[in-house]
């Protein structure tokens, strides 16, 4: 299992090296070593935008903030929508209309509403993370077994107690999945968010900046770094899931 998960990326690297050798055109497919040269020197300044590490940290910080903001709004709203039919009827269609709009399309409005700076970037990331978290929360809360709630209710639990002792723990695994998916999409939005004018750091910015000057090796290095960080964070989510929500497997 372990070995298999490493085998395929290695195969891709091999195919890349062979392909680059065959094509022999750095513009179409740069050689492994020209991209590796960038990745293996993560502290060197890149076109005056700072190092790979500095830019990666800025991006993680922004995505983390946008993601937490999205979770803080989406989870309570999701619980409320799952619990109160009328609220759901009121909001559902609007949410379904807003959900398919790519965060990239919001850039011009984001700039006009929130001006240059962190708020605009957070808004774009927020949009990416918000909907998966919201929908999974609604799903999770609705999926809590009715018998559990009824039992708690018969035993004299109050609404508050039912919410915090029964519903939230019961919905937690699904909400967690929502958070995991939400973070993935938020991280994906980093390039879009950091395309906003006035941004001067971040991996997305670095990629777009390198694009301005057609610097393909740097663009690919940035892409790989975004991928690797995404993998790391997703692994973290899965580790916690396996540890905290193992009971769900037993329940099945």
């Amino acid at each position, binding site marked *: 299992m372990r070995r298999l998960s490493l085998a395929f990326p290695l195969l891709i690297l091999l195919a890349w090296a062979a392909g680059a050798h065959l094509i022999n*055109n*750095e*513009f*179409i497919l740069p050689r492994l070593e*020209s991209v590796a040269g960038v990745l293996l020197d993560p502290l060197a*300044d*890149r*076109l*005056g*935008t700072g190092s790979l590490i500095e830019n990666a940290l800025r991006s993680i910080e922004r995505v983390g903030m946008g993601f937490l903001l999205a979770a803080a709004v989406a989870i309570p709203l999701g619980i409320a929508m799952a619990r109160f039919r009328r609220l759901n009827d009121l909001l559902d269609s609007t949410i379904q209309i807003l959900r398919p709009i790519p965060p990239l399309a919001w850039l*011009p409005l984001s*700039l*006009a509403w929130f*001006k*240059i700076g962190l708020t605009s970037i957070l808004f774009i990331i927020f949009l990416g993370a918000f909907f998966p978290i919201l929908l999974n929360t609604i799903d999770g809360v609705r999926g809590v077994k009715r018998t559990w709630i009824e039992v708690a209710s018969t035993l004299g639990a109050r609404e508050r107690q039912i919410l915090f002792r029964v519903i939230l723990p019961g919905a937690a695994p699904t909400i967690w999945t929502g958070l995991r998916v939400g973070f993935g999409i938020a991280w994906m939005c980093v390039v879009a968010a950091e395309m906003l*004018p*006035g941004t*001067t750091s971040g991996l997305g910015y670095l990629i777009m900046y*390198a*694009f*301005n*000057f*057609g*610097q*393909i*090796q*740097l663009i690919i290095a940035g892409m790989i770094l975004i991928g690797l960080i995404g993998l790391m964070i997703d692994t973290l989510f899965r580790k916690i899931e396996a540890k905290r929500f193992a009971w769900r497997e037993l329940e099945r």
Partner: protein
Amino acid sequence: MKIVKILAVVACCAVLLALAGCVASTPPVQSGTTVGILYTGFGTMPTLMATKQIDGYIAWQPFVEVAPMAGFGKVLSYTGDLPPDAVWKNHPCCVLAAREDLMARSPDLVNAVTAATILSTRYVNEHQEESGAIVADWLAGKGNFTYGNISVSSVDAMTRAIYTVKFTNEPTDAWENGILKFMAAQRDLGVLKGPLSNSTDDASKALIFDTGPYRAAIQMLEGKRIVTPAPETRQLGIGYLMSDHDTALFVAVKKWQYFNDTYGIALKPRDPTQSKPDLVDLLVNGQKVAEIKLVPGEFGGPLMQLASTDTIQFVLVGNPPAMASIDKGNPVKILMALNTEGSGVVVSSDAPASDWPSFLQWAKERSDAGKPLRIASPGKGSIQDILLSYTLKSSGVTVKEVQV
């Protein structure tokens, strides 16, 4: 079963798209010479050229200079030399513009920023080599640009480029009339729908220009007495393009100490270690007058939008986006020039063209063969686009946008 259905639909779509692609990519045969224009932005041009997807491009510096340096192209013509009859000699390019409300509220401050830009422009003309290195530091941290197997030093590229751009500020009649030529081209393109769409030349000038700050700045500099503006409590912003056309701004910030000591007017960076400072203090006669953020943009349009929402108050942009925005009611006026010329036409290194006549010959051969030349242009209605279309049309060439 469901999956099979979905796959079938996807396959049908793919076939349809492929068919559509085939149909669209066959160029319609035309009488006379046709040249295709492709809108690509700047960054992709070297790659498109090196992968033979375009035969040439028109761009601002340093994208003209890097072509021969990296070996994928050669310079056909700088824009100032384009035919017919040197009509584009000293053609206007980037301008300094400012919001009207700031000019009304704090004229001394606008005059001071204008004066700082004028002083810096003079410095650029007297220290071209040093200015080239400053631009390379600002735009690329003095790093290398890598195109294919070849790395080009940004310092070398920017220094070569500096000599092909004319840095000048004076809003002369010839310059104003030159801008009206771009306005006429924008009318033809249908970009202008507001007051500039049918105004007389005098009315257009009144809408576009306010040369008051330039004259006031010159007067202050001649009298060697800079008026200290009242301190501004609000943070201001200057938007600029990632281009060496805005060298005056970069030099003003990087050489702030010199300007402060010599003239008592400077844009001092908060963090002098940054290669691209994003926050400066406007110092006049040793006094901090305003905190100004510096906002880079790839295109003029988004920067003009930021000016329209008062997020920034000054912009250094090409004259067409400034006019298009003024036409839409953006309360901004063009104060003066930043540079003239400074762009160029590049063709692939194996192109059988070395000047405009041989280029036309090549265009005709390719057009007759049913494979019209494809020339990349940064964006519709940009200075480069207007210059290229005008020049091609005046040579009797039909210009067609390549439909992809």
